[in-house]
């Protein structure tokens, strides 16, 4: 029978032996190094991101103040030293040359996972005509960096943490047997299963303790506010604890098989390869093969054909456009060219929408497939959750793109009536210009669901272990 005293004794004995073997010191130091380096990398990326956004906002402000001076002079009837096509009182000039910054600032926890943030742009300046943002949202970057990915906290947790667990726990039982200590342990009044579980649990507590303390200390030091969103902070901590527990339980179960240390190590590594390397890349491959995105090369040509057709029919288009927008009709002023341009843009947007939707649908199918299959591997669950917590998931960027798209329409719609009526833009209108504020998607449904799924995994492993241990006698663990 197990007594509380014997448990405490074993805990103490284990703890001291880990300390003497310098395991604790090694673990603490390695984890400190990894967490600090990865968070430093994350912070560096976030700083760069925020730096470029702030610079862009400052440039726009500067330009705005020059614009206001010009507007002042023009409205006061002074001659200004800028050519006609740079005069901000023309709505088309204002709408093109004085754009707003539509930025996606970094989330409080963005330094945890780079996610998709190295692929996409974090600010654009939509103008009332010209470049279409639907097509190009990617950042200028060295593709080699994108391919290798970033050494961020997410990498440390998903890839490296399980390996630390494997190194720390692959031989908890086998070593005792190989060193001949197991017979001695068996003479104690404690079941071998409980003894092994305690050993594994102690190691878990130690590693989890070190990790949590490290995170709680280092995260605020790189600028993450732990209290800004308690829900998110606790999700992050629970995810880490859950993932760690999963690997400990796996190591525990594999030890329970009663094989040699080397055999345990091979088996655990095989699990790691399968769960962290092979399954994710295979699922990704199936997503791409089963739900391929239509050819972008084809899209390019289709868009051109639509554009030409629209330009050819500009006159007719204007008439039908004005039928759809009676509020813009019946004004004498304004340039005919601009009117035709906007009318044709409207048609182009309508015509290309089905093609763009086709992409949207296939991306959604891919996403749905991946979302369903993510439950196969805890590594996938953790990656998805960390990206969501950091605000760098595909969902976040998609959402941002949609917000920019809506904003660019609002921006265009602000100036279009002025163009159609042939009216000037005035200084008083500066205050009414539409602005862009990024609204992060609400809720953390993915990370919460993933956290629960990881816990379920842990529960299954623990339950499985219990059932198995009841069926097998302790003798099976003893040396032959």
């Amino acid at each position, binding site marked *: 029978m197990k007594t509380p005293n014997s448990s405490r004794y074993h805990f103490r004995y284990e703890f001291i032996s880990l300390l003497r073997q310098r395991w604790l010191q090694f673990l603490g130091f390695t984890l400190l190094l990894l967490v600090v380096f990865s968070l430093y990398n994350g912070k560096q990326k976030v700083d760069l991101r925020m730096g*470029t956004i702030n610079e862009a906002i400052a440039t726009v402000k500067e330009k705005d103040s020059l614009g206001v001076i010009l507007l002042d002079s023009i409205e006061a009837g002074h001659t200004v030293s800028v050519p006609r096509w740079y005069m901000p009182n023309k709505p088309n000039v204002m709408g093109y040359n004085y754009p707003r910054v539509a930025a996606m600032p970094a989330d409080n926890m963005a330094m945890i996972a780079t996610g998709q943030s190295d692929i996409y742009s974090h600010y654009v300046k939509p103008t009332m005509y010209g470049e279409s943002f639907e097509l190009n949202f990617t950042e200028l970057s060295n593709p080699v960096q*994108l391919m290798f990915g970033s050494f961020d906290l997410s990498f440390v947790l998903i890839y490296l943490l399980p390996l630390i667990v494997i190194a720390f726990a692959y031989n908890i039982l086998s070593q005792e047997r190989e060193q001949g200590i197991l017979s001695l342990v068996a003479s104690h009044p404690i079941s071998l299963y409980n003894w092994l579980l305690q050993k594994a649990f102690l190691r878990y507590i130690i590693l989890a303790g070190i990790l949590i303390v490290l995170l709680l200390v280092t995260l605020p030091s790189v600028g993450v506010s732990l209290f800004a969103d308690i829900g998110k902070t606790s999700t992050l901590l629970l995810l880490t604890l859950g993932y760690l527990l999963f690997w400990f339980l796996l190591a525990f179960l594999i030890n329970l098989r009663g094989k040699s240390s*080397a055999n345990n190590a091979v088996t655990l590594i095989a699990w790691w390869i399968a769960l962290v390397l092979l399954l994710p890349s295979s699922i990704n491959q199936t997503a791409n093969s089963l739900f391929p995105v239509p050819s972008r090369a084809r899209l390019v040509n289709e868009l051109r054909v639509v554009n030409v057709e629209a330009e050819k029919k500009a006159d007719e288009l204007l008439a039908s456009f004005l039928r759809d927008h009676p509020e813009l009709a019946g004004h004498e002023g304004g340039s005919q060219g601009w009117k035709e341009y906007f009318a044709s843009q409207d048609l182009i947007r309508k015509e290309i929408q089905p093609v763009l939707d086709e992409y949207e649908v296939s991306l959604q199918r891919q996403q749905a497939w991946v979302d369903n299959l993510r439950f196969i591997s805890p590594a996938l669950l953790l990656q998805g959750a960390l990206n969501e917590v950091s605000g760098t998931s595909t969902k976040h960027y998609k959402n941002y793109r949609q917000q920019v798209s809506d904003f660019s329409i609002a921006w265009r719609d602000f100036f279009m009536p002025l163009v159609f009526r042939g009216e000037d833009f005035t200084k008083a209108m500066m205050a009414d210009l539409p602005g862009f504020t990024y609204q992060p998607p609400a809720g953390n449904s993915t990370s919460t669901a993933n956290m629960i799924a990881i816990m379920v995994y842990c529960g299954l492993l623990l339950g499985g272990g219990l059932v198995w241990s009841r069926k097998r006698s302790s003798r099976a663990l003893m040396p032959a």
Partner: protein
Amino acid sequence: MIRRIMLKEFKENLRQGRFRVSLLIVSLLLLIAAWLSFSYFNSIQQQHAEAKENARNIWVSQDEKNPHSAAHYGTYAFKPKYPLSLIDHGVDKYSGISIFLEAHKRNESQFMAAADQTGLSRFGDLTPDFILLFIIPLLIILTGYNAFTRERELGTWQLLRSQGLPVWKLALGKWGGVFLPIFLLTAGLFIIAAVLLGNLQDFGQFNLAALLLMFVVYLVYYAIFVNLTLIVSAISRHSGISLVSLLLVWIVVCLAMPKASSNLADAAFPYPSRQAFASAIDEDKKLGLDGHNPWNQAAKEFERETLEKYGVDSLHKLPFNFDGYRMQKGEEHEAEVYFKHYALLKETHQQQTKVYQAATVLSPFLPTRFLSMALARTDYRTHWDFADAAEKYRLKMQEALNMDFAENSSYGNWAYRADKSLWKNIPDFSYTPPSYGTVLQRNSGNLVALAVWMFVSFFGLRYFTGKI
């Protein structure tokens, strides 16, 4: 004797269920990856050919119009895929597939495949290069981690030593035993690739020598891993410790170093953001001649110089249309601005490459990765080359259009329409990648790094096995 030990090790490995299962799984994965890669390649090749043809059709079937309108209308350059990309997809997923060629602007390549995929894609794809670079080294570790520790644990080491065989000969035999199955597996994949590629129609330049060279690069990479595995096995006390240490080596070499060097490269030599890059170019453009803006200061200056040069007092008296001529001069100024900014970007890229080069000291994965991509023509350098070629073509195309406008119309005649034949007379864009000689020369640093790794690790193997 070495051969006997090698065969004994090989047989012993084959008898182990674990080894057979791992070998089977990896072979199966390689086959699946090769098949997926092949079908992906075929479909991309087809899409590419179709898009290229369509783009050309759209360009030549333009109506009569002002050449400058055609210049703004532009066309697309599509990046070709090369046969060996079947084995190594390199950075293709992250580098975009086409570049829009238009007046006044050098555009970046568009549509990187990774942007059209889910966040999961960052875990990697099941491609032959993924298996070759990441999984086969793991197979080597799983095969060889206990090469020496096992002898020690079973007490057979003393027995072996009593045979009087020099330890390094024994080590060579063990080396062969681990390397042989890996060699056979890799050879199998490359033979399949050679057969598939050799039988493809309309495939362009499939170069058997390049395929062989790639094969050799991977064999050297594996030789290094076998050396590292045997060294760790020789110095470890237990098989378990040997395996866990080797896994650490693998993590550092294949995952941590590439990522860490990316972070270091980015921190030391960051790329500008797309928007910042574009605004810097715009600022510089404004300082010079704007082909569309006759009132621009540089344009006025140019006008005065031209009048002086031809000894006339009015633009109407020039023997060509000054509008077209100015447009061409504006284009040349803009081209210089782009050249300057892209040279700066390239400089940053080269600085980043130096960081990766320095990191090859700690990781034989890096030189292998870069060499393999370079031979497959899926590396960043090839992408740069393609982009530069597209820019060169763009400038030629602009020149032809502007000069047609200048020579065939009079000043102020924006209503001039060029004949349809002009579109056809501008040749289609075609890109020839640099020769393999150039590729190897550019990658000499990687070749040296790989060779040094091989020699040093062989030396290390001899040294450490001598100390057992």
